[in-house]
């Protein structure tokens, strides 16, 4: 994999097939790192985020995901979330934002 950025609580890298693989917490510290990685990848095609190793997300992290979704919509694309865990699903449900993404698969 190609490492795109890292932080004490968050690392982001590209899988061989182009998905952005996120490890750690998407919070006020990690959210900007994820957002930068997403922006850097947008020219290459639709954004796919592998969230299997995301164990925490707050509204600052959700803002990064929603921003990616909005920009993808402007390009006629969607943001796909892969292996979404209960922590992320809960925040999407609380905020009523699940429909902003394509949920490809879940992690229990």
């Amino acid at each position, binding site marked *: 994999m190609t490492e795109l950025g890292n932080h004490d609580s968050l690392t982001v890298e590209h899988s061989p097939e182009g998905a952005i693989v996120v490890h750690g917490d998407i919070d006020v510290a990690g959210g900007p790192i994820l957002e930068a990685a997403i922006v850097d990848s947008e020219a290459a095609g639709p954004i796919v985020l592998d969230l299997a190793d995301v164990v925490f997300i707050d*509204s600052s992290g959700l803002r990064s995901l929603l921003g990616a979704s909005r920009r993808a919509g402007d390009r006629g694309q969607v943001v796909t979330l892969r292996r979404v865990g209960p922590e992320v699903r809960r925040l999407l449900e609380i905020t009523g934002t699940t429909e902003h993404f394509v949920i490809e698969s879940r992690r229990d």
Partner: protein
Amino acid sequence: MTDTTVLGPVVVRLPPDPTLSRVLRLTASGVAGMAGYSVDEIDDIKIAVSEVLLALIEHGAGRPIEVEFAAEQDAFVVRAHTPIDSFDTDHPDLALCRTVLAGVCSSHGIELIDDEAHIWAAVAHLTP
């Protein structure tokens, strides 16, 4: 004597550094765990703590933030404040924060009191 131990308040004073969000969540988790809160409740407490801190980091004046945890019989209460010159409690960027707090807390509040931004959130303890 109940199964739930009341702990706190535990007071933490920290600079407005985003990298400390995880440390603060771990601290709150430890206090809640010692007080007998469930795993699901602790997950909500971590979200509440993170929302409280990010609101004061993003909308504060870059000055120290004081956070207080209290594990009470019926709720885990997080209170935080920081000195500020002006604070728009209706700022659009706080809307998502408020929505999340409303989803995980039994009550919460964001206020400007005497040149300080104050945020508090209470996560209900349903399994005493």
